[in-house]
């Protein structure tokens, strides 16, 4: 029975992987022969059609009235019965594709992206080939997900963040909006906003939840929305919003009738201003502050329920935990050869327990964080309550993730503090992964 189950899931997953890889296969950096072989094997056994061609580019979101059909939702993966840490074939291929992009494109561009506070057009172009924005959008809406899988999203974010967390978050930020509209939107919202994300030039978009005040609690936002007739009037401020001055579309959270809710807000709305909001890390996201002063949007822009807002908050935290795993692994991968090479007192510093034990601590806490993140994601995919598990992953990212960032600088001493190595960036980025809300969504 289990075998039958596994086969059918793999079959249904084929379409997902195929779409991903049809795109990935064309990416110049993915000409690696191993990846290639896997792609070919995959394509061989797949009988599915290729992905839908992109529609004509448009940046205006024409309101579409529902045709009577209910909204489409990505299917949730079927329950599995075994404890298992092996990614599916599809997930392995997405991982590999994301790793290639991370090591060949994101890592070399990381310092500049951090400095410039933006992802270069070149990197954007290479990344868009992967169709990352569509990772949580269902097939029938032009996306690549037949099965919505938080595990897959977690693996992809982790792999990208191993290259560079800042650019990874920047690249996945529009996906958060597309996924939110797929998961929580009604048919009209889906038909209005999702087609743009399937275009070659997908719009920049951001899930704006965080606010500037200390002790921010996403369940009690100070941004408010007052409903009057068919209009919602929004007032407040959103902090550290990805690409605030470049995004065409925002999903923001606001307190409406006493409940925290999500609202779709298009750029250019009257009363919606942005200002730069640079931060210590994750700088490539081009963070800005959104100031909302009497911003009016149709009531129809209310996205999902209060429960959906909470779901988004949770899934965002899980996305950040995945990013922390990627960056922490990157740090460990660099620290291991470094401490063996670096000499002090006539021998490699790795020969000293104070140094070696720090490596062990990093590895232990990193693996704990990784497993907690995967468990939370797999529970989401099973349709189980994952609130506690997400809290665990978040908490581990807050404490141990940040500690790993600190260790990553400490073990290099002065060299960790200067920009000669990426360690000082990992320090800044890993602090953010446990602090920031919203932006990502798995």
């Amino acid at each position, binding site marked *: 029975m289990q*075998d039958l189950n*596994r086969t059918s*899931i793999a079959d249904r997953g084929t379409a997902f992987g195929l779409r991903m890889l049809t795109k990935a296969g064309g990416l110049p950096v993915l000409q690696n022969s191993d990846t290639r072989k896997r792609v070919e094997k995959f394509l061989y056994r797949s009988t599915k059609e290729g992905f839908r061609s992109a529609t004509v580019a448009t940046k205006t979101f024409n309101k579409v009235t529902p045709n009577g059909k209910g909204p489409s939702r990505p299917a949730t*993966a079927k329950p*599995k*019965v*075994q*404890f*298992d*840490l*092996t*990614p*599916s074939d599809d*997930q392995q291929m997405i991982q590999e594709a994301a790793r290639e992009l991370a090591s060949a494109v994101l890592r070399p561009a990381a310092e500049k992206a951090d400095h410039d506070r933006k992802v270069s057009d070149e990197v954007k172009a290479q990344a868009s080939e992967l169709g990352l924005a569509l990772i949580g959008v269902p097939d029938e809406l032009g996306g690549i997900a037949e099965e919505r899988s938080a*595990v897959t999203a977690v693996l992809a974010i982790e792999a990208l963040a191993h290259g560079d967390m800042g650019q990874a978050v920047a690249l996945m930020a529009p996906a958060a909006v597309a996924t939110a509209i797929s998961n929580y939107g009604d048919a009209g919202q889906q038909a209005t906003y999702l087609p743009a994300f399937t275009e070659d030039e997908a719009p920049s978009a951001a899930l704006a939840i965080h606010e500037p005040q200390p*002790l*921010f*609690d996403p*369940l009690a936002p100070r941004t408010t929305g007052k409903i009057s007739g068919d209009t919602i009037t929004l007032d407040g401020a959103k902090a550290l919003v990805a690409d605030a001055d470049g995004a065409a579309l925002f999903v923001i959270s606001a307190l409406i009738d006493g409940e925290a809710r999500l609202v779709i807000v298009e750029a250019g709305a009257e009363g919606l201003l942005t200002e730069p909001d640079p931060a210590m890390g994750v700088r490539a996201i081009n963070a800005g502050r959104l100031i909302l002063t009497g911003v009016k949007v149709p009531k129809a822009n209310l996205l999902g329920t209060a429960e959906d807002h*909470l779901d988004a*908050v*949770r899934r965002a935290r899980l996305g950040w935990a995945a990013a922390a795993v990627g960056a922490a692994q990157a740090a460990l991968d660099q620290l*291991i050869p470094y*401490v*063996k090479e670096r000499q002090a007192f006539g021998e*490699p510093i*790795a*020969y000293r*327990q104070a140094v*070696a*034990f720090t*490596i*062990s*601590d990093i*590895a*232990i*806490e990193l*693996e*704990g*964080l990784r*497993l*907690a993140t*995967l*468990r939370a994601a*797999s*529970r989401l995919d*099973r349709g*189980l309550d994952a*609130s*506690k598990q*997400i*809290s*665990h*992953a*978040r*908490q*581990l990212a*807050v*404490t*141990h993730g940040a500690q790993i960032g600190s260790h990553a600088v400490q073990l290099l001493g002065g060299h960790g503090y200067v920009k000669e190595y990426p360690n000082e960036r990992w320090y800044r980025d890993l602090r953010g992964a446990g602090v920031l809300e919203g932006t990502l969504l798995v």
Partner: protein
Amino acid sequence: MIDLEVPKKFIPLIKQARTVAEEVMWPIARKYDLAEHAYPTELDLLSGVIDGLDDSGTGTGAGATGASQTTGEDSLASVGSGRKTEEKSGVRNGTNMSSALSIMETCRGDVGLTLSLPRQGLGNAAIAAVATPEQKKRYDGKWASMAITEPEAGSDAAAIRTTATKDGDDYVINGEKIYVTAGERCDLVVVWASLDLSLGRAAIKSFVVERSNPGLTLERLEHKLGIRASDTAAFRLENCRVPATDLLGDPEIRTETGFGGAMQTFDNTRPMVAAMAVGLTRAALDLTTKLLKAEGVEADPDRPAHVQSAAAARLLQMEADYEAAYLLTLRAAWMADNAKPNSVEASMAKAKAGRTCVNVSFGCVELLGATGYGERELIEKWARDGKILDIFEGTQQIQLLVIARRLLELSSSQLR
């Protein structure tokens, strides 16, 4: 497919172990903490239940003997030794996992009592890991303890001074062993001894010694900080004669493979000790959560820790570290079940679970104040019991050393 939930087939086992913990162990835990060295007779009845679980044919072990039997009866290669058994299609959730899960539950009941469960000793795990089929048959149904530590050799197991000298068809063992868990109550003692002190760790072998052997003298039982329900023995071995057939594993001294045979036992037992620590941590967290709830403190997983009370925030952090320890332990067991080399993962689980169970149980005493520190509740006892779990089967520091040497690919002469 990635999934980190306990499979349904283990739920009945877990429930049964939980019932044992709550209905049998909790009520007598304090009694045997106060009556150190008294034999918990209640456990004799229990061992029938445990044996029943072992023999139920479901492939789910209830204790340490369950660990490591997955590679088949004829295989000398223990799980985690790096030797692959035949490729199996699909993923196994086997006896290493079920043992870990049931140990978590019984140690949520009581660690000292779990260590005193007849026929579930660490020596049994060693036998399960390295004994030949003939030996396994011979030792079947016996309770085996483990004698490694000596007064001058703790973490540095290679420094043991106990010797075994071949004499005809026998070995004659001489030396002193301390910290033998269940040493008084067991039927067999697995003793580590050197065939040739000049050849270092490669010459260390393990021998199964009958508890009734006249050359084996019980010197004393220790008085301890915790796990008082478990007897901790010191032995003197004086011209202790054992048949050569009671040597476990390869009788030859192979300097190239070194310590392997003896040390590979730890790949199987460390996840089990980690499971003990996970269980104790769960006990402390469950009781503390309940007692704090009565005081109006409840942690909300969805709200940031910093907007909740300090006690609630502390609970969130302790639960998160528990989760990491729990999952690292299940991963190490899962790898063992699937014949994946797991030395590093076993040590990671042991290190994380060991430190977590000390930090959490100690932290719970702090949170609960007089209720935590006093003897009316079991929290203070768990905080004392838990400390041993960060020490035996390799201290925290030894685990860090094992992990670092492996990750950094450094030898014991480079990273000392």
